[in-house]
């Protein structure tokens, strides 16, 4: 089992959260997930993920943050 990549971007201002997640997507392995913790829902990220063949789930956590889990939708992309 590959470890998740944890990206806590709550203390970063735009566009640094986007910069970080774009970098992480490039090195994301099959079966691995990015766990992004954000203080707001990153709406601009979603169309990029869909276009590039990633899947994601967003949850609102008890700490009052958004947790976005991202993984590859198929091994080929």
């Amino acid at each position, binding site marked *: 089992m590959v470890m998740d990549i944890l990206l806590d971007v*709550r203390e970063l*201002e735009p566009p640094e959260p986007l910069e970080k997640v774009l970098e992480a997507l*490039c090195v994301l392995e099959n079966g691995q997930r990015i766990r992004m913790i954000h*203080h707001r829902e990153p709406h601009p990220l979603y169309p*990029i993920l869909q276009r*590039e063949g990633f899947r994601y789930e967003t949850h609102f956590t008890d700490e009052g943050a958004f947790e976005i889990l991202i993984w590859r939708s198929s091994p080929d992309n």
Partner: protein
Amino acid sequence: MLPIGLSFQQAPPISVPFRFFLTAPLFLLAAATLLLVEGPDLMVHRHSAAALAAAHLLTLGFSSMVMCGALLQLLPVLGGVPLSHPGRMAWLVHAPLVAGTLGLALAFLSGQALFFHLALIFLGTAFGCFGLWLASTLRKIRGGGASIQGMRAALAALIVTVSLGLVLAAARSSGLTIPYVPLSSLHPLWGLGGWTTLLIAGLAYQLIPMFQLTAPYPARMTSRLIPTLLLLLAGKTLGEFLPGSTGKALSLAASLGLDAGYLWFATVTWQLLSRRRRKVPDTTLQFWRLGLGLLMLSVGIALLAEVMGDGLPEPWLLMLGVLALPGFILCVIQGMLYKIVPFLTWFHLQSAYPGLGIVPNVRDIHARFHADRQLALLAVALAALAVSCWLPALSRVAGLLWMAHALWLEINVLQAARIFLKVRRVARIREAH
């Protein structure tokens, strides 16, 4: 794995906002040069020809220039309504705004009717095109948050400001008799306290929590402040034209309400910034703090003017103008510029060349600007200008400091354009191989 890029279809090309951002400091430089040349003559009275020319170089040439450029870039993205024919639209607003601002400054300085006529035509074209675009775009956005509502109110205030300005300019050039005293006080009130401040407040609702990592503005403020300020501006206008004590009472009540509203915005924004989550130093935060402090001071002097009626000496009234225009408005707009310019540089490069590993990250772009030096120059230039209200002999020193400030800003925006062009050149070479 292919590199991942951005694709916000709504964003217009970088040349659209940057032509406005690159031109604006040149008008600041022109206003500073005028202060250097005219010296104490400019500081004699707030309605002197040179003071009016300098004020319009700042309001039209700098603050409206930046705000038009920023809105042409931000509104299509925030509202999800693409800007059709962005290049043509930018040209239709930018070129006549440049020509009209220069024409109006020359008109005040020379007193020649021809320049007033030219200014009327060019500024009418610039704001006509911009206003029509803004109105049609805002109509297409369903609902919209507090920021969009702020833009709607700012547009209404812009229409009143420009209409009053056109009437005043037409009267000066043709000798038409108009109620000059109320119109000449309502025009700057709608321009600074309406169009500019309502837009700043509307954008702040979105940009302060996002870029400064603060809590959101309280809902009771975002839902009530801007519509109330707009109503109070209308009340003040009505009060100025109603005869007798009723008009005076309405005008005073509206002025006090406006002061309270501006103070509320300044206090809440200050508190939000004090409790921001991110504790690393940030110069743009200091631009905001300085601007908000100056807004509070200018409200204090405005209150004094309202209580004392016509009894407040001219240097205080000049000081009120200095604290509000080159003070609050320039500080806050530059605070926004130093966030928006690096962001847009990165955004457009990342969109165009995502996978070549040549796009600098946004922190590196920020680091090249030395915004702290800009802030220091601004603070010293403002202090010199404020002292010049009482000691006009110092005004040429203030002019020199403002020239240095304007040049530094221009160099920094040019630096952003240089970074963009350099990365684009490298990318094209790599793509060619």
